[in-house]
């Protein structure tokens, strides 16, 4: 079993934000993945997808599922993150007032992705974009 899913995400489009996460969640249910893992994948992917909508110009979501793991890879073109360590701190946020009015931008997203994943790798280049890799193992390591 090896499945790959690909989605595009538009920066600033808060109406459709979460579409990719919703589709991925439905497919994982069809694949009979454990519900606890599905919730962790859904939460981590949704937080990361909302980050692209909130901060970047556009991006892609690629999901690879095999027998061992689920790999979420989000790549965006955008302002990038100058200090990833600082961005990981709970409460630190550069979100706009519009994003905050929608109930996000509390500076909790990246730490929540970390909490809801087995492995998180973030690389970023200022004024170029950000790449986020999130791994979920299907079996205890």
């Amino acid at each position, binding site marked *: 079993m090896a499945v790959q899913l690909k989605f595009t995400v538009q920066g600033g489009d808060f109406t459709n934000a979460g579409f990719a996460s919703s589709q991925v969640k439905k497919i994982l249910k069809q694949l009979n993945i454990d*519900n606890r893992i599905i919730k962790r994948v859904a939460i981590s992917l949704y937080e990361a997808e909302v980050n692209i909508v909130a901060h970047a110009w556009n991006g892609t979501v690629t999901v690879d599922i095999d027998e061992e793991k689920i790999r979420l890879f989000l790549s965006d073109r955008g302002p990038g993150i100058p200090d990833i360590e600082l961005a990981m701190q709970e409460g630190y946020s550069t979100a706009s007032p519009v994003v905050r009015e929608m*109930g*996000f931008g509390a500076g*909790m997203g990246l730490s929540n992705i970390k909490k809801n994943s087995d492995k998180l790798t973030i690389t970023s280049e200022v004024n170029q974009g950000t790449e986020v890799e999130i791994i979920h193992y299907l079996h205890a390591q």
Partner: protein
Amino acid sequence: MLQDKTKAIHPGPVAPESNSPVLTIRDVLELTGAKLVYGEEYLDKPVRKAFASDLMSDVLQVEANDFVLITGLAHPQVIRTAEMADIGFVLLVRNKKATPEMISLAKQAGIALAESKNSMYHTSGLLFKAGVRPVS
């Protein structure tokens, strides 16, 4: 004295009427005077726990499943958040109205959606008193 008084009125972490029967979505609507916007088929679903917040970032941190989300935020991302967090019932308060996008997303995700004129505090108080537990 003040400390004793606080102790006497503080209900503790468990809802006061822990022996009361489990409420359904139908009961919650009746109790809070809320109007169902979508989800007739879910009216008999039990409502055991609740979380109240306008901050979706906080909702996404809750580890419990299948609770009622009480919120004053009427935005499609509220329904997306509920979908990701396995929340089966969203109760809008402060007379906020569900948008057509929210109703459409609630249908797709199978989430009951209702509107109440009461404040978040009022609604939460009514549910707490009736035995609906906090998420943790």
